């Protein structure tokens, strides 16, 4: 139990810290690297919840595919002098801070009052739900239709990306 708490708190602190660093860095490459660190922390948190399949595909899809795409685009664009994009303390930033603080308080109040009566954590049950075997069985029976629709979505994304990034539209 103590070990679980240590793992959770260290992963939580690391994920919040890397998220903060990601948002505040000027250089997009460094921001992307902090985002990858954040993804690894989240994968660890999924493992503390016994969601092994989600943890593995999270690493594969996010850190492996999406962030590589981000880094490619950052390097393709070759943004150069980042100070041109630099933004000092402006009214917009103060409003952003206030608004997001209000949003945080709203979410926390919902989570404090709305989570009463939930069942206690049952590790055996969670372990049974999170395995690749169980998720695969559900994916190809109960969730077969959404799974097939996903393929159409990905096809549309491929065609759209090629059309948008083409040199000359004809």
């Amino acid at each position: 139990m103590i070990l679980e708490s240590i793992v959770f708190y260290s992963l939580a602190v690391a994920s919040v810290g890397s998220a903060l660093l990601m948002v505040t860095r000027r250089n997009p490459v460094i921001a992307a690297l902090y985002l990858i660190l954040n993804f690894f922390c989240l994968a660890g948190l999924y493992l503390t919840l016994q969601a092994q399949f989600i943890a593995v595909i999270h690493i594969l899809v996010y850190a492996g595919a999406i962030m590589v795409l981000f880094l490619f685009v950052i390097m393709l664009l070759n943004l150069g002098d980042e100070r041109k994009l630099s933004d000092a303390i402006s009214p917009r930033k103060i409003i952003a801070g206030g608004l997001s603080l209000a949003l945080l308080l709203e979410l926390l109040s919902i989570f404090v009052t709305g989570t009463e009566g939930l069942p206690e954590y049952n590790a055996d049950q969670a372990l049974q739900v999170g395995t690749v075997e169980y998720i695969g069985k559900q994916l190809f029976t109960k969730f077969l239709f959404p799974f097939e629709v996903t393929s159409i979505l990905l096809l549309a994304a491929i065609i759209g990306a090629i059309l948008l990034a083409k040199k000359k539209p004809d």
Partner: protein
Amino acid sequence: MGIQLYLYLSAILFMIGVVGVIARRNAIIVFMSIELMLNSVNLTLVAFSAFLGDVTGQMLVFFVMTVAAAEAAIGLAIIISLFRNKQTVNLDEINILKW
């Protein structure tokens, strides 16, 4: 270890993502903040799924990841074509849709 801890953590991560979207002007960093917000919601879904012993939450995370991958591909293609036309990724200078 209650479910509340996971929910608080995801609320904090979501808030950091919101700050990034509103305060930053670099389109790529705004985009990464959106990914951060998607992930914080995924954490909420996985936490509920594990605590309720219901697989539906993890299925939804699976589909959110697919949508995020499609969104990243399309969004980055849009950023590339914008950069090709305007030589900038500063969102304040990208106002061609503004009336």
